């Protein structure tokens, strides 16, 4: 169980970005985390993986626990060894290394099992097997995303954190990524899916959280979130009454005001 309790994160000693945030990722589950830009999604992932330090961020209150062990003070390598791996936003593959070298680096913390995991990853992503000697920077966007996911899986994680895997991909590729997430989850890895693409995220997740300015404003099973009027309007761009005429700009202002009152 990966659990965040009342987490408060401050950047540069002054900017409070997460304000008492709590979420839970059960083992083997898929949890979606939605939110607009600047809601604190990436910061939360940094807190989960020990990467706050290099961004001058710090956990000032609350805790992150992995199977009831506090992990928010551990170094990134220790967290990876405990079974939490991350696919960072924007893929962040090592462009000048080959595909296989990228994958090998993903297994850095567990060198003895690299060979076995390589073949597992190649089974899951046959495209990467074809391109294993290619320079990673020349892969297409979708292939790079698969490489980033494969690289994270090389650590053999129990919890996989995905930061916007659909970023900049065509709808058909997003569909492919979605199926891969399902496949990864079916193999026993829990997934925390951070997305702006709410339709995709909620269609695979069992549970969803909506983040707003560092707080959880909605916390419901994914099916209920999909049906939720506010989520449909703000994240899916669907209006409450279907067939309704277009909204005027004044109503948009109205929704901004109303959003503050959610839950």
């Amino acid at each position, binding site marked *: 169980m990966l659990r965040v309790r009342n987490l408060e994160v401050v950047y540069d000693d002054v900017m409070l970005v997460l304000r008492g945030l709590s979420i839970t990722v059960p083992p083997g589950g898929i949890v979606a985390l939605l939110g607009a830009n600047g809601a604190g999604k990436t910061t939360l992932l940094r807190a989960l*993986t020990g*990467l706050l330090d*290099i961004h001058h961020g710090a956990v000032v209150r609350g805790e992150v626990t992995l199977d009831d062990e506090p992990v928010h003070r551990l*170094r*990134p*390598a220790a967290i*990876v*060894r405990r079974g939490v*791996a*991350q696919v*960072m936003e924007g893929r*962040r*593959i*090592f*462009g*000048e*290394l080959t595909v296989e*070298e990228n994958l*090998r*680096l*993903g297994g*850095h*913390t567990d*060198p003895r099992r690299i060979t076995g995991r390589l073949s597992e990853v190649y089974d899951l992503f046959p495209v990467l097997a074809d391109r294993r000697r290619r320079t990673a920077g020349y892969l297409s966007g979708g292939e790079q995303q698969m490489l980033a996911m494969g*690289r*994270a899986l090389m*650590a053999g994680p129990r919890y996989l954190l995905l930061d916007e895997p659909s970023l900049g991909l065509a709808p058909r590729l997003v569909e492919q990524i979605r199926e891969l997430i399902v496949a990864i989850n079916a193999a026993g890895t829990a997934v925390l899916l951070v997305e702006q693409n709410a339709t995709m995220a909620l269609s695979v997740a069992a549970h969803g959280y909506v983040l707003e300015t560092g707080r959880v404003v909605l916390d419901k099973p994914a099916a209920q979130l999909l049906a939720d009027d506010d989520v449909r309007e703000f994240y899916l761009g669907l209006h409450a009454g279907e067939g309704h005429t277009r909204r005027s700009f004044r109503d948009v202002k109205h929704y901004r005001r109303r959003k503050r009152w959610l839950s």
Partner: protein
Amino acid sequence: MTELIESLLRGLGTGSVYALLALGFVIIYKATRVISFAQPAFMLAGVVAVTYLTPTVGFWAAVPLAAAGTGLLALGVERTAVRPMVGRPAFVVAIITLGVDVAVRVVVNAFIGLDVRHVGDPWGLRTLAVGPVEMQQRHLAAVVAAALLVAGLFAFFRYTRTGLAMRAAALDQEAALAHGVSVGAVFAVSWALAGGLAAVAGTFAAAGGSVDGALWLIALTALPVIILGGLDSLPGAVVGGLAVGVLQELTATYANDVAWLGGNVSVITPYVLMLVVLLVRPYGLFGTREVERV
């Protein structure tokens, strides 16, 4: 013709020394984005260690021992003087390495003392003749040693887990960190490698001659070399080192034909070359072109 070939070979010999020194600079730069000006001091420390070790263990054991010792010294310097500065502007760290350089050299100079010290290499000034062409054995040895070390480094970066982690950290430190690479260890290994390389380079620079406090000036030639080869390119350091060595020896051989140049112009050729490269191609032959938004 013989003269040309001989000066080319001499150039490759001195160039190998420059290449080894430049590799140290580049390895540290790639890992930490800082130019370490402490390399000359490590070179001097390595040579002096060899002069002390040779009488007891012999030259062949002294060189690796001194290289390892200098590597450890560099590791200690990184840990105590440089690591606390991680995240500070590169300029600040570079100045600190300058201070480290002066401090280490003062200590090492005390060990040189007033005697003439020799590294005790087996080559001296003897030559190897192939037909009419003569080559100094120490130059041949420097080329062979550099080739072996470069091959070793290539294998290290290409095939080992640590080498791969170092390359990845050089490309994207945060992403490497996120996959469990210890960036601190990467810094430490890069400093240790640079220290060891400097010690070997110093030994070959001093082979056939004597060791004195001014030997460190040779290490400064590595600066034109890394500017020529590109600050962040390992092949660039090797090619640049050999090119600068050859250029220097060619100038030494043929500058006498041009009376107005005067003697010893070869000493400044690397720096003239650096000036030209900085004007024409500031990122060097193989370096990454810096893209900056103005």
